[in-house]
């Protein structure tokens, strides 16, 4: 991680309302090159809304998004993919009736021209690619023709992660990638995230398990009722301090001084 140059993604004064609910209010956040940023916060704090806004599923009411210092308007997931962003959604976004390979390549199936004119899905190439990505990147061996409704929760989650890697993105958003996984599979995802960072990727991860967040990330952004409470280095924060920020909506220094009532000589920052 370096602080040199513009952030990979920067959001400035981002606002998003749904009716009268302010889902994001005045969010300012930087995603530095090659870092792993954790997003934590209670349900409804705005984590998923932030991700969905960054991939263009929601358009912000106000504020800007900058990628590598340049302001961008992101039209939708396809555009986000072109900008180098891959996403694993909280709901996995899999279509039960379609196969493993079809899900991984949904919306971007490789196409070949039948008889030189008729564009049809290149099923063979798609299945080979799907199988390769799953086995090389995730060490999972599945028949790419299997409908995903036949698969277990963990396997489904693996497909969703595999799909985010199909477009070979530089930036990967993971919205609760481990919620349906066993302990061993969680370790596997942690290793994958680490490997993604080692190969130059920049990662944003939403996770309810704070131990996982602390061990995986470089920095943690705490959200509370649609705003960013504080962004802290993962090495310099404890689980309890994060919980305090999540609950109180006050930044780290403030919560500690609240905890220690009126003691002005708090030793920690």
């Amino acid at each position, binding site marked *: 991680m370096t602080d040199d140059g513009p952030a990979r993604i920067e959001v400035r004064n981002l606002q998003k309302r749904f009716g009268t609910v302010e889902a994001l209010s005045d969010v300012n956040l930087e995603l530095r090159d090659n870092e792993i940023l954790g997003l934590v916060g209670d349900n409804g704090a705005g984590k998923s809304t932030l991700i969905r806004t960054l991939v263009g599923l929601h358009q912000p009411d106000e504020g800007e998004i900058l990628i590598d210092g340049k302001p961008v308007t992101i039209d939708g997931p396809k555009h986000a993919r072109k900008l180098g962003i891959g996403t694993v959604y909280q709901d996995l976004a899999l279509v039960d009736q379609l196969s493993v390979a079809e899900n991984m390549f949904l919306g971007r199936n490789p196409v070949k021209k039948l008889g030189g004119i008729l564009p049809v899905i290149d099923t063979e190439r798609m299945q080979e690619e799907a199988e390769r990505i799953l086995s090389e990147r995730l060490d999972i061996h599945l028949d790419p023709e299997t409908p995903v409704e036949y698969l277990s929760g963990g396997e489904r989650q693996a497909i969703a992660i595999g799909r985010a890697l199909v477009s070979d993105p530089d930036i990967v958003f993971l919205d609760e990638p481990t919620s349906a996984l066993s302990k*061993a599979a969680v370790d596997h995802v942690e290793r994958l995230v680490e490997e993604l960072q080692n190969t130059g990727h920049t990662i944003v991860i939403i996770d309810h398990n704070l131990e996982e967040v602390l061990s995986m990330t470089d920095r943690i952004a705490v959200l509370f009722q649609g705003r960013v409470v504080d962004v802290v280095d993962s090495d310099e924060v404890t689980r309890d301090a994060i919980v305090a920020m999540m609950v109180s909506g006050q930044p780290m220094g403030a919560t500690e001084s609240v905890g220690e009532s009126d003691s002005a000589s708090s030793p920690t920052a």
Partner: protein
Amino acid sequence: MSTISSLRSSVDDLREADRTRMMLFALDNLIWPILLVTFVLFSLLLPEIFTQYRNIRFLLYTSAGLGAITLAEGICLISGNFDLSVGSVAGFSAMAAALFLTEWFPGMPGVAGIAVLLLVGGSIGLLNGVSIAKFGVNPFLQTLSTLIIFEGGILVLSTQSVYGLPASYLWIGGEDIDLPLFRPIPLAIFAMFALFLGMWFILTKTRFGRAVYAVGGDEDSAAEAGIDTNRVVILTFVISGVLSAIGGLLLTGFNGGATPTLGTSQLFPAFTAAVIGGISLFGGRGNVLNSLGGVLLLGTIGAGLVMLNIDPQIIQTVNGIVLFAAILLYTFVQRYRERLLSDL
């Protein structure tokens, strides 16, 4: 070996899973054994006559128009939508094209009439699709209103049947094709098979087709994967309108002219055929080739009842009973399916 895949690594488990998958395959293609049993049953009730060339020809020929309209309904159902207007679109576009060729622009070639017919059907489909996708109108209400508008529209155009159409217009729905070493076969039967194969190809082999299944299976997921779901829904309804119009063309050829009631009685059989062919009412599931099985089953039952000298008025009731039985059957199949899936 990863931990995830090792969850069911033992050989016994795999064999069990294979058996379950075979069972699922059988459930998904249930229409064909049902069709076979029904056909054999009528062949036994009507020994010799039911399996005659004349009867098979009649059975297939009367199925052709319904087949196209069933495809029109089927693609909408697969996309998670609903189209009540398929029959009235068939009737309206057939009547508009017939008047175009006989009264509005007499002397125009049949192919111009076919172009008008397809344009009218596609435009009504576009109207349905835009309302549903862009304005968020409920598909049931939207297509109910187009059903009523164009059902009435047929009578505004003409309360009389229109005959005297060019032979080239009636050709595909009305003419026989001479085959070497075999008796002549109506072209409409080939048209029906070609339409089913074509739609099967589009739905299974192209990006658009897979997107139709994705949108029907889970519209939010499809959007998250980057599919323009509005575009898919609009295009689905346009295709549905065009297929309904082709149904109207085939029925015009079959009747020798455009009758005001040509499409009226087609909606429910089309719906029934799609559903008994295993196309899910909830979207995202079903094979259009199996809905051909549904069309042929209705054709078999219809032809069988006629030959048993049963009052034709009863046929609609029988179709209703078939639909009811199919829905009951598929409700049980669906439950059984879910149980099988949870065992995998």
